């Protein structure tokens, strides 16, 4: 009896004890694995973020430096205006042979024999072709400079700039390089004499489009983006707030308002390129607005940003407690007064946060702008939103299609500037929320 009992109890206890042991181990291992997967997923995401930023920064930080060659340019009258007609015909100064001035100065600085054409050509190739406009602008602005010698900082050509920054592999065979040994020797001479220097690149912030990397900048594109952001802000914020107030506070609950609500949620998820097609067909073909204009871009981006602003504003209005409304109504305010004097000011931080996030989104948007003709080679600052202009992300797109090393550097530099704008805007939104958001 006792035997049976003991044996049965041991038979009962033993297998279950071992089974539970094995099970626990396996299950805990699965638990640890599962946890590790989760951690690995987050780390993978962060790794990609890091690689992305590192690519941009490592390629782009050098874009903020530019090699310049400061040469004593002799503004010789016999080259610029040999027949002395500038008093009668000032346009002569526009078409004078300025590259010759650069050539003479360079030949003198490097001590090359002017008769050796091949050498002279190699030497002048080191200076950007934009030197012509630079010198022309100096002379046109101040014709008295003719006949004197002035030290002018000229931009170095893109490949020379890359070589000076150490981005061109000098161990490669000379014929396969964009910069030859003779030019490297001259670069050394110029650097030693203090003529060739690396300075902070202000040009990238002020220049417009150019086929030469050293003379290309984002200034013009940034102005186009600024116009568009102002249009978006001026239209999307009031319209978005008005629409949300109607939907949240006045609209009767019926089929129509349900439809509007579903519709707005859908518009927020429509691919941005569809808005480009809308802009092309309605604003440009139907309404006859000019192609490439910042006005059309601004309108398209406004339509794209509206759903974001409406959704954020409605959430902010919803968060204002009903007691505020009841108190105002109880004191005799009309519904309109209640909303505009009490509810809306309390919801304003949320509204502004949503607006800033919507604007940041619009600032980085490229696809719809490609369709309305903003892929344009714009050299001059647009004077108004009706003139042809381009946008910061579109400029990045156009540079990304260029093959030269110096353009890769500029593209990354422009991306860095764009990202800094976005970071500032988003930080502003976060600070606004932290500072003013009220918990009821």
């Amino acid at each position, binding site marked *: 009896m006792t035997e049976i009992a003991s044996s049965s109890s041991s038979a009962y206890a033993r297998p279950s004890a071992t089974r539970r042991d094995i099970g626990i181990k396996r*299950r*805990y291992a699965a*638990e640890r694995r*599962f946890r590790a*997967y*989760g951690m690995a*997923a*987050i780390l993978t*995401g*962060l790794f*990609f*973020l890091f*690689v*992305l930023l590192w*690519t*941009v920064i490592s390629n782009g930080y050098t874009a903020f430096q530019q090699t310049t060659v400061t040469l004593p340019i002799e503004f010789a009258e016999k080259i610029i205006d040999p027949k002395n007609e500038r008093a009668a015909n000032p346009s002569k100064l526009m078409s004078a042979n300025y590259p010759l001035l650069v050539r003479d100065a360079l030949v003198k600085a490097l001590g090359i024999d002017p008769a050796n054409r091949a050498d002279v050509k190699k030497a002048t190739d080191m200076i950007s072709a934009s030197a012509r406009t630079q010198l022309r602008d100096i002379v046109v602005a101040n014709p008295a400079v003719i006949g004197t010698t002035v030290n002018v900082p000229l931009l170095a050509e893109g490949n020379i700039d890359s070589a000076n920054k150490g981005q061109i592999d000098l161990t490669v065979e000379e014929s396969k390089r964009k910069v030859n040994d003779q030019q490297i020797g001259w670069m050394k001479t110029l650097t030693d004499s203090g003529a060739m220097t690396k300075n902070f690149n202000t040009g990238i912030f002020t220049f417009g489009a150019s086929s030469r990397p050293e003379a290309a900048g984002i200034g013009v594109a940034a102005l186009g983006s600024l116009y568009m952001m102002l249009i978006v802000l001026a239209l999307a914020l009031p*319209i*978005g707030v*008005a*629409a*949300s*107030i*109607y939907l949240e506070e006045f609209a009767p609950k019926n089929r129509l308002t349900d*439809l*509007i609500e*579903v*519709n*707005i*949620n*859908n*518009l927020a998820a*429509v*691919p*941005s*390129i*569809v808005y480009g*097609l*809308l802009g092309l*067909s*309605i604003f440009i073909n*139907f309404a006859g607005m000019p192609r490439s204009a910042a006005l059309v871009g601004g309108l398209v981006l406004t*339509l794209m940003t*509206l*759903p974001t602003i409406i959704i954020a504003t409605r959430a902010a209005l919803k968060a204002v407690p009903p007691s505020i409304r009841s108190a105002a109504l109880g004191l005799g305010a009309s519904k*309109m007064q209640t909303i505009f004097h009490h509810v809306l000011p309390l919801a304003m931080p949320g509204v502004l946060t949503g607006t800033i996030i919507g604007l940041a989104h619009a600032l*980085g948007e*490229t*696809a719809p702008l*490609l*369709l309305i003709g903003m892929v344009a080679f714009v050299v001059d600052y647009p004077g108004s939103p009706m003139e042809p202009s381009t946008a910061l*992300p579109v400029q*990045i*797109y156009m540079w*990304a299609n260029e093959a030269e090393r110096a353009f*890769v550097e500029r*593209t*990354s530099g422009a*991306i860095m500037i764009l*990202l800094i704008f*976005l970071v500032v805007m988003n930080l502003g939104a976060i600070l606004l929320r932290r500072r003013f958001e009220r918990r009821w």
Partner: protein
Amino acid sequence: MNAPFILLLVLIVGLVAYLAGRSRAFATSNGKLSILHSLPGYHGMYAAICAVIPAAIILAIWALAAPAYIDGSVRGALPEAVHSQGAATTELALGQVKSVANGLKLLDEAELAALNNGSANLRDVLAAKGVPLAGAGEAYMIKSAEQFNSMTSTSHILMAVAVLVIAVAGAILALRGITAPFRARNQVERVMLWALMLASSIAILTTIGIVGSMLSEAIRFFNSVSPASFFFGTVWDPRFAAAGSEATQGQFGLLPLLAGTLYIAFVAMLFAVPIGLFAAIYMSEYAQPAVRSIAKPLLEILAGIPTIVYGFFALVTVGPFLRDISAQLNGLVTGSYVSFIQAQSVLTAGIVMGIMLIPFVSSLSDDIITQVPRALRDGSLGLGATRSETIKKVVLPAALPGIVGALLLTASRAVGETMIVVLAAGVAARMQLNPFEAMTTVTVKIVNQLTGDLEFNSPQTLVAFALGITLFCITLCLNIYALYIVRKYREQYE
């Protein structure tokens, strides 16, 4: 006197009406504001509204209708020789007349006289003033241009007078109506309510605009290409139609583009879903609040980076990296260092798009997982399940409909994504299954067909709208279904 300037004048009238209305209301109250029904400001607002709104409406109608009317009568006055050559020539001539009209404004008396007696060449004279003419100017153009100029200036003067008279009349009428019991506030609020309704109808108008504009252009496309050959065609070869050239017949098969779009989106989802989902699970179930508060915003930075930056990343880093590593792998296995992954390929575009989608998947799923009630978890843990078992057997099944909705929303984003595929996927429209080669997408072709100087009425350009409406329908279906699932699911726990 152009329209913006007149609008400014109207606004000034409005401001004056506001100030006058307010002070008149003060005067009516004799210092006892309580006898007024509405505050003086509302009386002022009412006067301003009466002054500005009718005038602005008339101004808008006039500014839209007058040019059409002037065009019509100038077109009618063009010589019979022009009309006989068909509508296109007439429009061209009208365009020239308009640029001549612009140029004539810059000329002085003597030059005008020379032009009128035929002693000066129209084109040369205008070119000297910086107005280029497309064709040689003809004599009738000067007359038509003068007619155009005189009608335009008459219209401007009439418009200015009419609009200003209406504005002032509105203001005076409103000011005369100010009395103590007048319910100005109710009137003003009614107008405000209309304005609010108008603003919220813009959302509907946008949708109607999208559907209407794309549908009408797509129908024009389907007039020259049959819908069957578009939707079921397997060859995409639109040919090139330069402006002014004879229309060339191309083949517009949607299927290769759709295949590329779905393939790339599939690769992207394959990459983003496991990472995003596991990240969301870890963040909602395991992570310490401190870790979560750092990792979540960092991951969401990925969502805030513009897509053009991802495109550049694919072009400069990921594409060349995959190409080089495939060459190395091939070399290790077969000895020949030839890359089998192209720099622009389905894989490149898919991976980079996947990186972009990670935060979408993770934050949408995170929201849904945290919405699963605490009690379900506690019950499962109380029965002895480990945390991962609770997640796999209780939390995820409960959250599944919501997660599917989130994934559908993400997929719709992948299908509509443009800049990454433009830079990373290539332009070759092929139907094939090798992820290491280039394929192209609907969005890439929309961009390709619409950039550059193309003739707008050719099927080569209009096809972009047919592609656009296809894309819109696909994403619309995905979105509506996803929103439906997410909404339905959310209601279960509320």
